[in-house]
């Protein structure tokens, strides 16, 4: 085993451990031990079994799927938990991404300022940017929720769709805000000095020596850790929330609004709160995305990539089930990415049908995802994992099988 593979193993361990905790059955203590063992084993095995390019692809795939899983969890806290039909995921995603970019980039100066404009650039650290992204998206969600959340479900769907489009128009047309139609470049990656040749100055020389064979292209190995940690935090928080009295109250408001109101619950407040929580998570997702792709523009936040596909993920995984939301994100992103290879392989066949078809093959993926959603709606609207309806661990006879 070469040193580069060993270094990659070190980076793979933590995400695999978290994955193990998520999927393994059993009691908590047993699960931790099992997950530790399996993660260590797999982290060693993966670099040996796969060639380096494949492994890098796998890791960047997981990073992107993890980002989508954050969005899918955010949507779950709105739709799954509280029944808001938010067709405007893209809007909050965009607000989060651009906010974090503005807070962490450097204000362009001199000749660069003529090409690149932005409202401000504060050079704050990554985590502050992420939190600010969440806060700003939450504020936007709060402002929107006041007029809109009183509406019927169908109006809410139309209104949120409109909000996302308006937000995209703003980022497209306001040059002073975030460089308008031009991409906003140079969004810093946290700790990217780990992979540069003179490594970070604060790094002990042993660690620098250990990481030295890794090139900047391997940065995604580190970012996977960042994404999986944030995903884990969001997941645990949402799991706690959905089992808390507040979460039960939300589900009561969702299922029986009138009787919840009759029992003295402030229905409007709860609905607004849940919408704001979801917006915060989507904003965080946007920030994580922005720092991963480094350069963002308005076109990233179109209804397909940022709203539609997230809904497909949540519907496939299981509305109301946080684990399902994550599984759905990985599954749909897998279909989406796998379809690219499939279409590449099929391009000679496509050529036979029409000369234009291979160059338009990308749109076959749209079709595939749309078909997937149609099939889910028709044949399995509850998704892979159903919502856990269990109310309390202490209630006798409540097996959660309901």
């Amino acid at each position, binding site marked *: 085993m070469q040193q580069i593979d060993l270094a990659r193993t070190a980076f793979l361990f933590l995400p695999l451990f978290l994955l193990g905790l998520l999927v393994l059955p059993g009691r908590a203590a047993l699960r931790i031990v099992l997950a530790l063992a399996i993660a260590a084993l797999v982290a060693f095995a993966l670099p040996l079994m796969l060639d380096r390019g494949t492994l890098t692809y796998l890791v960047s795939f997981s990073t992107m799927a993890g980002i989508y899983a954050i969005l899918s969890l955010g949507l779950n806290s709105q739709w799954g938990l509280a029944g808001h039909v938010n067709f405007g995921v893209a809007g909050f995603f965009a607000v989060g991404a651009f906010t974090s970019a503005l807070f962490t980039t450097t204000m362009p100066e001199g000749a660069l300022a003529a090409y690149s404009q932005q409202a401000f650039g504060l050079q704050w650290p990554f985590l502050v940017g992420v939190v600010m992204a969440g806060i700003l998206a939450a504020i936007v969600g709060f402002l929107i929720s006041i*007029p809109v959340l009183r509406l019927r479900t169908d109006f809410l*769907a139309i209104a949120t769709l*409109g909000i996302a*489009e308006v937000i995209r128009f703003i980022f497209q047309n306001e040059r002073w805000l975030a460089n308008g139609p031009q991409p906003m470049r140079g969004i810093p990656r946290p700790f990217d000095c780990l992979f540069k040749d003179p490594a970070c100055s604060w790094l002990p020389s042993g660690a620098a020596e250990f990481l030295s064979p890794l090139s900047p292209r391997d940065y995604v190995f580190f970012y996977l850790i960042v994404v999986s940690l944030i995903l884990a935090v969001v997941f645990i928080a949402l799991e706690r929330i959905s089992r808390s009295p507040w979460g039960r109250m939300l589900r009561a408001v969702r299922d029986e609004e009138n009787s919840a109101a009759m029992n003295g619950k402030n229905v409007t407040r709860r609905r607004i709160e849940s919408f704001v929580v979801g917006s915060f998570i989507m904003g965080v997702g946007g920030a994580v995305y922005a720092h991963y792709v480094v350069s963002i523009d308005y076109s990233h936040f179109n209804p397909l990539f940022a709203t539609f596909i997230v809904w497909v993920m949540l519907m496939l995984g299981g509305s109301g089930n946080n684990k399902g939301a994550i599984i759905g994100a990985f599954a749909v992103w897998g279909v989406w990415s796998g379809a690219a290879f499939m279409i590449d392989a099929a391009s000679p066949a496509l050529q036979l049908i029409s000369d234009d078809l291979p160059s*338009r093959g990308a749109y076959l993926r*749209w079709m595939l995802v749309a078909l997937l959603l149609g099939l889910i709606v028709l044949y399995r609207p509850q998704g892979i994992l159903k919502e856990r309806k269990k109310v309390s661990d202490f209630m006798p006879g409540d097996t959660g099988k309901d």
Partner: protein
Amino acid sequence: MSMHDATGDAAVARRVDDRSAGERMVAALRSRTALAIALALTLVAFWGLGYREGASGSDLLSLTIWGVMLGGIIALGAIGLTLVYGVLKFPNFAHGELVSFGAYGTFTIMAFLPAGAILRPFSFGWELLAGMVVTMPLVALIALAVDRVLFRPLRVRDASLVLFAMASLAASFFLRSVIYLVWGSDFMFFYPGRSNPALSLPLDIRIQADQLFVFLLAAILVALTWILLSRTRMGKAMRATANNPDLAQVRGINTERVIAATWALGASLAVAGGVMYGLASQLRPEMGWFLLLPMFAAVIMGGIGSPMGAIVGAIIIGIAQQVSSSFINPAYGPGVSFILMVVVLVLQPMGLFGQKED
């Protein structure tokens, strides 16, 4: 839901008026008259803003007339949307794609037709109109096929509104991917490079003959739809089904046939809207999606299920979009229609001509 309770309460309170002055004021603000006044004031404010930004009176007049024309295009789409919304009770997010299919279908059929002479002063020939008429039943078939495969099973299962909305979103992306696959993502024109000079009219108004034609065609089709809905058996059955599907079925109306007729009518009008929109600007796969927001705004402003309301709403939206371009970036046009929609939803979600539900 709470909205119904609120309106029910208002009805009771009208008989025994023991409301406080504040409550009465809120109720007055939520009336249709107030909504109509608010919309009128918005338009006046738009003209004022445009004037302040240096647009001349004739500029504003031209913009207003263009707005009425844009309203005609939006109305052609919105009538179908509001009928489907009224009869099937869900927002059909795939309606914009029917508009796009209309434009692209006509484009393809025109290629098979012999190119006729230009009908001066318009910029198009007979083949455009012929293509449009041929495309109408084809797109109606597409709409019926989508309904049969997707929406009918959901109807049979009595699925929730959200599933219908999700299904229509899926249909929207599916149909758009078909457009991308068949016609590609490049912009296309019915008549590339053909000059289309503005007519010289009194008051310095600049209008192309095509724009007048768009408005005229929209008016004729809207009038035909109106006659269909108010005079024919099928039209009456449609309105009855929209009003109360169960009762309509009990009274011997074949609701499935009514639904099929609704789709066919809505799709045909959408084709006309798409062709007119393509003639006024260009053909691109996203054209229907861009029209979707203004169409929904018109539907909600007019009141769901009301074709008359959809027309009025569409014209207000059209004027607001065009006039607003005199003082803000024209790219925000759909945003303007969205803001108007939110105003309507907050003041009076039933819209200008909507029927009270239940």
